[in-house]
């Protein structure tokens, strides 16, 4: 990774405290804490979102898809999951759902009170299920 490709904040955390301000550093923090700080950032977002997505797929969606694949649709399991949260984190959630990196800037929007749907589609020519997303961005109604 190029140093010029990382943000100035990372730059300060990684270089300045370690090499030039170690006294100041020890007064406020230890190296472990600093390393934790550098790991926060979009990577931490990815970690916690991937954990939740895995939980949803393991506990709900994979058993439901297996049931559908077994050819007994009448025994299909309830499989809708609701996630209520916030603007930025849900855009990142949708990005991780389709396997995109958070740092790629998910080019989708969800306005306040908006509802989006993430689901699975069959890849053409195979039975394999892949993740998909569709956002009902304008589906907020005024009373």
């Amino acid at each position, binding site marked *: 990774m190029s140093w010029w490709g990382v*943000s*100035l*904040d990372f730059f300060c955390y990684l270089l300045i405290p370690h090499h030039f301000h170690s006294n100041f550093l020890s007064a406020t923090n230890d190296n472990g804490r600093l390393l934790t700080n550098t790991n*926060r*950032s*979009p990577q*931490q*977002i990815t970690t*916690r*979102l991937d*954990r*939740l997505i895995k939980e*949803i797929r393991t*506990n*709900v969606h994979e058993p*439901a*898809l297996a049931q*559908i694949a077994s050819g007994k*649709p*009448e025994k*299909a*399991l*309830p*499989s*809708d*999951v*609701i*996630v*209520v*949260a*916030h*603007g*930025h*984190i*849900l855009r990142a*959630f*949708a990005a991780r*759902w389709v396997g995109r990196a*958070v*740092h*790629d*800037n*998910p080019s989708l929007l*969800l*306005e*306040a*009170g*908006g*509802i*989006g*749907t*993430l*689901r*699975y589609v069959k890849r053409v020519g195979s039975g394999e299920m892949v993740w998909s997303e569709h956002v*009902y961005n304008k*589906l*907020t*109604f*005024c*009373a």
Partner: protein
Amino acid sequence: MPPPQPRVFIIRHGETEWSLNGRHTGTTDIPLTPAGEKRILATGRALVGPDRLIVRDNIAAVYVSPRTRARRTLGMLLEAGGIGDIEVPGFERARKEQGKVDDEREAKVELGEDSREGKDMVAKVTEDIVEWDYGEYEGITSKEIKQMRKEKGEKEWDIWSDGCPGGE
């Protein structure tokens, strides 16, 4: 009719004062605006219910951010759609404090009966889906952040790749 293919409904909480004027709201716990609540109820009536997008019998799990604006959005959507058997932790109490809980229910609470009575599912409150921790940028707008970074000689900001100092 068999349930549809597995889905996740991602729902953004309703309007707040800060979402209106573009201030980044991460950890700060601010309420929905009256207009935001009105629109959530309308959305719930339109999209939640037996013949709507979100149908009770198809729901397998519910996750919600710990922030009040998210819990309230969920509680109001379910209520507007006539779904009464999914508990949203913290939502009933908030309604009671605002004097909106009906007398019968209040009486039950006073008698010490389990307020979860009749609830078949509990929404899971999880930190995994809290808003991006904006750190030093909490409560300020993108325009202000841009100006701050310019004054400090920092490069143009992209939250997706740069994150937030002191946050995520």
